[in-house]
């Protein structure tokens, strides 16, 4: 006869069998990722320009390129990614519980998120901010003329709070009209339920395209909040934190040195010491991160530099047509700046 304890063990192992897909974590995220053969990357469940499946079912977007860059650095293969779509509520749990290794999901870097959730932000992929979309007919050229306006916004986001703050600070009244999804918000705006539509500027461009006549609406110059978006990793694994952080820096540095996915092979013998260090010909800067010397070369070759990724996904090469603005390099009037590789 089985003792009580044995029975319990038996039950537990039966349970483990049933669960099938269980995995036991090793010490480090890098080892886990290597054993699995793919980076598990948390992306949004569909956000124009940042992460969405294309016609072929391949994920595309600025956030997606971060996942691909990390995979290129770790495996030398940008396609070694498992995309896990997460909604806004479950994203942090998924990262904390180890369901994803990197969260690259249009997430704003704030104090509370950085300090209380056991997470680390690794950098900024897109400096976003809340803006306003108004109809041309309204004849408004500045957000300060919006006193008394009916404003369409999406529920459950910080946009509602920012909006209230901005109007209170400027001593203006407004009438919020709250919708659930972006389609409804656009629908409300088109049907004339509101004069103004507010959202993050990255999303305003996508919302504007959905209008029957996109040229009938303009985006006002004011940006009323700071929304730096970036990838997030779990706290406590500094090696992995470094890998994700420097994958992004490598992309920004590559743009600064003029290295693109097309000319990266020619740049191998450019003679510039900065380029040689980045591409792994002078010293091995990947070693301390547990990567090969050509980690950055793989990122640039397979994903491209930051500028290429930006233009392809949200910039002029995409339907969204977002200006580089403050997302330009520091050398070109923006604030994208990466520490040197040396």
């Amino acid at each position, binding site marked *: 006869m089985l003792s009580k304890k044995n029975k319990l063990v038996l039950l537990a192992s039966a349970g483990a069998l049933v669960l099938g897909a269980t995995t036991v974590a090793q010490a480090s995220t890098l080892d886990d990722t290597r054993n699995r053969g793919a980076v598990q990357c948390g992306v949004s469940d569909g956000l124009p320009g940042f992460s969405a*499946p294309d016609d072929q079912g391949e994920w595309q977007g600025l956030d997606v390129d971060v996942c691909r860059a990390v995979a290129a650095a770790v495996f030398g293969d940008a396609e070694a990614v498992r995309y896990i779509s997460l909604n806004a509520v479950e994203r942090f749990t998924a990262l904390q519980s180890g369901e994803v290794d990197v969260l690259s999901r249009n997430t704003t870097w704030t104090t509370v998120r950085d300090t209380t959730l056991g997470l680390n932000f690794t950098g900024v992929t897109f400096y976003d901010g809340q803006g306003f979309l108004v109809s041309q007919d309204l004849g408004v050229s500045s957000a300060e003329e919006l006193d008394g306006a009916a404003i369409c916004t999406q529920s459950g986001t910080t946009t509602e709070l920012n909006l209230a703050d901005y109007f209170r600070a400027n001593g203006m009244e407004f009438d919020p009209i709250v919708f659930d999804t972006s389609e409804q918000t656009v629908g409300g705006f088109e049907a004339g339920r509101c004069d103004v539509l507010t959202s993050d500027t990255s999303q305003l461009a996508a919302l504007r395209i959905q209008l029957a006549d996109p040229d009938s609406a303009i985006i006002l110059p004011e940006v009323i909040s700071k929304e730096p978006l970036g990838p997030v990793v779990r706290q406590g694994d500094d090696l992995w934190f470094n890998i994700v952080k420097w994958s992004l820096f490598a992309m920004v540095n590559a743009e600064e040195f003029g290295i693109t996915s097309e000319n990266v092979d020619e740049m191998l013998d450019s003679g510039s010491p900065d380029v040689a260090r980045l591409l792994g010909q002078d010293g091995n800067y990947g070693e301390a991160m547990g990567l090969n010397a050509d980690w950055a070369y793989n990122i640039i070759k397979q994903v491209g530099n930051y500028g290429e990724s930006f233009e392809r996904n949200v910039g002029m090469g995409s339907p969204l047509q977002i200006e580089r603005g403050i997302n330009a390099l520091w050398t070109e009037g923006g604030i994208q700046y990466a520490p040197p590789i040396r």
Partner: protein
Amino acid sequence: MTIQSKMIEARPAPNSTIGAVAWLRTNLFSGPVNTAFTLLGLYLLYVLLTPTIQWAFINADWVGTSRDDCSREGACWVFVNARLGQFIYGLYPGSEIWRVNLTFATFAGLIAWLAIPRLPYKRWVALATLVGFPVFAYFLLYGGHFGLPVVQTHRWGGLMLTLVLAIVGMVGALPIGIMLALGRRSEMPIVKSFCVVFIEFWRGVPLITVLFMASVMLPLFMPTGISVDRLIRAFIGITLFQSAYMAEVIRGGLQAIPRGQEEAAAALGMGYWKRMGLIVLPQALKMMIPGIVNTFISLFKDTTLVMIIGLFDLLGIVQAALSDSRWLGFALEGYVFAAFVFWIFCFSMSRYSQYLERKLHTGHRR
């Protein structure tokens, strides 16, 4: 005065009482009020249908490959066309799609075998459907054995995922529901109270909460590093939730069976399981067909809620496609397509249940 010596031939009914005109007159124009309402109805139909038809068919764009091929005056079916594969198979790798097709073809074949009365070996086929098929489907869809590459569940999606969720939910919920219904009527206090608590708990929380718990809270309770595939979490959540509803539907059927049936069976010396399996349940289940199918249809539609835990079911993948920056602004087309597919499936289920009711009808209808 004339005297008729022969039978007068039967004359056709007057023109005013037969034919389309008469039908119209009796049903639609039988008085001033009805005439007014008919005209009003026709006018409303005209007002509503004309733009719909113009949008969906006349002004619609059917051929093309990108959003530039759409004039945007009518529906842009190009979008649905370009994404059709994705709406059906989700992000399943293109070279492995035959596995999904084979799985569903097998399932359709098994169901057809069971549904066509002439075919033999019903019992074995039923056994194969309930026991063999899930194993077969798992190996085929997930892979990892017999040289098939693994297709991770996060690549599953579209109609395929909706069907998988619905079928797993139905196949899992029916037996558990029957057990719970029997348990709730049991006289054994522990069994009974367990069933009552289980049913009332799961009926008391909305499905969306169950899925949310499974996706957001459960991973926090698990030991670090152990994670259950989110699809399996959804399976478990949906099955448990649905079995509670199923149990109450079946209990309703059990209560409609006169006590005499069970007593007569007991008098013949049958044990509990034989009484239930041979006498009570066959009658109860037959009576409960509308209720059971109703539950299944609502389950089929409820599977769309998995969207909130980041699984791309049919509706989810349509929404994901809507956020592709190359296809922005075709929300209406996407939703109309999803609604149409759901309608086809739900309507077929409802027709099948009516067919079953007629077939199993043994003269007890009151």
